[in-house]
């Protein structure tokens, strides 16, 4: 279930999923940054305009002062000629202008060694019938500095505000979303068997409470389904095993009849064996259903290494009987664990197959360490076609009497349930199954 959703989000081409908080922060930034930029520029241009206006007014003011002064002074000295960078008065032969001309100019300055901006006012005046060109200038350097300073202060204020808002946003979001993360954690730790006991703490946020109500309803439904499936498989077991038990016990009683011939006894024994096979098949199918429905007991983890040794001991007779050479490489301190019932099935099926499909005098190689479990065996059987490797009732094209064709299907089901990758390869008459402890892309979903 978990890998499936992860796969959905991780679809190729999609963006990597981000935390909700990161996403809201990014959207907030995307929205606020242009706004701040625009308002800064607006402020800048407003200041610029205002200050320019101010300087022009000052220039006009200066001009009026000069005019007044010259009106009074020029009576006694008929010709003026004055020249400073800020002010010049030169006689010209052009006719007088009614209005002054205001413009921005760049002038070379000796101290700075470069051209600097000035605002200048020029007007051709007629004083006592002489034409003069009046030029008044004001340096704009100070104005530029002023605007620069204003700009920097604005940036600092806006930046501070931004950081403050971001922090506040983060803090608030964390606080607001806390119940959500708590519920998420609860859902992660949920177990089918103990589902009904899960309850969510009510929060002060309406949406979260709605989510909790929906989740609780869903969990109740899933638990009910789980229980009914569990009961169904158990009832099915009961209903099928009971007639088998009756038939088998009757046949066993029949065997005790001393008037029967050997041939008759043999026939009864064969029927009894067939019934036993049916019982085992039924058992295996139920087992598959149970693994699929997560109905096994997970409370008793068992070391894989221990189970392997146990089965090698139990099957020792069979190994000796077939004169098989057993080569084992069991690392002693492996921490690999599984619920006892599943470890039993996994190991007994794999080791059993390695013996069963071997030839007399063949070899079995078994290897177990912290990373993987691997078993190989010689066999006169051909390689198992990949497409029917783990399929139910597919026995590589041939049938062994005692096999029910479910062994590898069970092995595969257990591996799938645990997220353990299992691989098979065949080389030079040797079949090898390898189970890796950790899948390459995800940790085992199971914590036993």
């Amino acid at each position, binding site marked *: 279930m978990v890998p499936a959703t992860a796969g959905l989000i991780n679809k190729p081409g999609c963006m990597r999923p981000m935390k909700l908080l990161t996403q809201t922060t990014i959207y907030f930034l995307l929205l606020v940054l242009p706004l701040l930029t625009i308002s800064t520029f607006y402020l800048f241009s407003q200041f610029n305009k205002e200050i320019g206006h101010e300087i022009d007014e000052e220039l006009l003011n200066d001009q009026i002062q000069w005019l007044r002064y010259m009106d009074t002074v020029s009576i006694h000295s008929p010709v003026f000629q004055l020249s400073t960078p800020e002010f010049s008065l030169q006689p010209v032969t052009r006719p007088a202008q009614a209005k002054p001309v205001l413009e921005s100019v760049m002038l070379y300055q000796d101290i700075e060694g470069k051209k600097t901006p000035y605002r200048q006012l020029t007007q051709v005046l007629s004083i006592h019938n002489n034409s003069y060109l009046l030029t008044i200038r004001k340096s704009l350097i100070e104005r530029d500095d002023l605007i620069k300073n204003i700009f920097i202060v604005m940036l600092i204020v806006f930046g501070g505000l931004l950081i403050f808002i971001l922090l506040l946003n983060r803090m608030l979001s964390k606080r607001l979303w806390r119940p959500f993360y708590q519920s998420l954690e609860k859902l992660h730790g949920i177990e089918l068997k103990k589902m009904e006991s899960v309850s969510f703490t009510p929060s002060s946020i309406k949406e979260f409470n709605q989510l909790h109500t929906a989740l609780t309803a869903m969990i109740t439904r899933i638990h009910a389904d789980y229980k009914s499936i569990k009961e169904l498989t*158990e009832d099915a*077991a*009961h*209903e099928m*095993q*009971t007639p*088998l*038990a*009756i*038939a*088998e*016990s*009757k046949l*066993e*009683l029949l*065997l*005790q009849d001393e008037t029967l011939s*050997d041939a008759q*006894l*043999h026939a*009864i*024994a*064969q029927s*009894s*064996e067939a*019934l*036993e096979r049916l*019982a*085992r098949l039924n*058992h295996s199918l*139920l087992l598959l259903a149970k693994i699929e429905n997560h109905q*096994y*007991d997970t409370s008793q983890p068992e070391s894989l290494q221990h189970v392997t040794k146990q*089965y090698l001991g*139990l*099957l020792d*007779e*069979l190994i000796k*009987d077939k004169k098989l050479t057993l080569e084992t490489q069991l690392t002693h301190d492996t921490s690999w664990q599984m619920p006892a*019932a599943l470890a039993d099935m996994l190991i*007994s*099926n794999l*080791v*059993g*197959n390695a*013996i*069963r499909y071997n030839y007399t005098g063949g070899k079995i190689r078994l290897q177990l360490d912290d990373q993987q479990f691997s078993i190989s065996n010689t066999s006169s059987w051909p390689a198992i076609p990949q497409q029917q490797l783990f399929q139910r009732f597919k026995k590589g094209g041939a049938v*062994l*009497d*005692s*096999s029910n064709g479910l062994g590898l299907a069970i092995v595969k089901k257990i591996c799938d349930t645990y997220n353990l990758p299992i691989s098979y390869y065949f080389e030079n008459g040797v079949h090898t199954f390898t189970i890796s402890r950790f899948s390459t892309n995800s940790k085992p979903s199971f914590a036993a």
Partner: protein
Amino acid sequence: MKVLVIEDEPALQTAIRQYLEQQGYICETAPDFPQAMAKVNDYDYDCIVADIGLPQGNGLDIIKELKALESEAGIIIISAKDSLEDKLSGLDLGADDYLTKPFHLSELNARINAILRRKHFDGNTNIHFNEIRIAPGSKAVFVKDTPLTLTSKEYQLLLYFIANQRRVVTKTALAGHLWGDAYDQAGSYDFIYSHIKNLRRKLLEAGGEDYIKTIYGTGYRWSDQ
């Protein structure tokens, strides 16, 4: 020895009763929960074979009742549900053994035998069969006072045969008894043959009779007749 069989399937109940009676037990039966409770309260039994799924009740409650009565009876649960929880709770409540249906009657008989031996004789009473004497406490076997050295599998075989004496025991029953579920993986039961051959040889060498009769393709019978 008195055994109570609590089983609701009449056919299975009869089969168990017949087999146990053939082995010399006095056998009573109860088909449902109320009758079982009544019998458990009114009489003393040496061993009780109880199904878990019963009409009008649960076999596990009968175990509770037995424990409340401080009964000395051995208890074997038989259940069609191959449920680990049932098994564990049954054993927790004080059952001595647990068998999943379907089972071999010879297996049930051997287990009843083992429980009775443990309960009533503290496992110290010798088992006799003609010239053979088994001391279960020390797992020692004698033929006319000559000690035998048997492997653990041969010893288990001998006990199983004597518990089911004069009955035909199938190869699968023997394999199931000696190797449990692991024998499923065998693919053949031929390996039993070598154990039986060795047991027979050791008994003969010590001066015993050959009691193991082979029934072709079927199994074996331990018989002095």
